[in-house]
């Protein structure tokens, strides 16, 4: 099982804050997971998740580029942060 979270503008654009995915080979890395989500939900998700400045985190740590995933991981997609 993978837990996938979306925050802020991304959450609004997808109208989805969290979902869970069955573990399978197709989601064994970040790019694979993103492709799986886009294939399942359509063009709008592809456009939103494909934005240039999208940040991806695995188990609450920001990841640059692709990265292998393991069963039980928590993945998050969010826009650049604006706190403080």
């Amino acid at each position, binding site marked *: 099982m993978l837990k996938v979270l979306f925050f802020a*503008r991304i959450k609004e654009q997808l109208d989805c804050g969290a979902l869970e995915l069955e573990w399978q080979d197709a989601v064994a890395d970040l790019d694979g997971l993103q492709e799986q989500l886009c294939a399942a939900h359509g063009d709008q998700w592809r456009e939103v998740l494909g934005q240039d400045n999208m940040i991806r985190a695995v188990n609450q740590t920001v990841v640059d580029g692709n990265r292998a995933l393991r069963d039980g991981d928590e993945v998050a997609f969010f826009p650049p*942060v604006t706190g403080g």
Partner: protein
Amino acid sequence: MAGPLPMMTVSVQEADFDVAQLQEALRSGAQQEGAVAAFTGYVRRSNEQRQVESMELEHYPGMTENSIAEILQQAAARWPVLAASVVHRVGKLGPGERIVWVGVSSSHREAAFSACEFIMDYLKTRAPFWKKELGPDGGHWVSAREHDTSRAARWQGGSAQ
């Protein structure tokens, strides 16, 4: 860094906070303590020509607290920090309300000022908070600013001290 580990606290909360109380709580009691520098951030009443009626602050529970704690540890590794504390509010805030407080205690002002600024610069670019301004024209997600990224970047390479 030699000496006892600095006291570090992180709080992410909806409630407002009392700056005077936080500053007193930060006092480490260490014999060499000689300086406390603190920063308070507020909700602007207007931003980029837009009137702000209220602001909603969203965050990533868990990652937020951990990333701030990591920033405090990085500050303590660079400067002789005796105590450091961050309080950051989330939820709905009105214009003029306090958003964030950072306090650093040290033996001298240079370390206290620098560590406080470093913590704010890193918090703005690394801690997973997102601001949404609500005004007469509806909601507007605040965009990340290049200025904030370059301010944080100047601490890299060790020349900014």
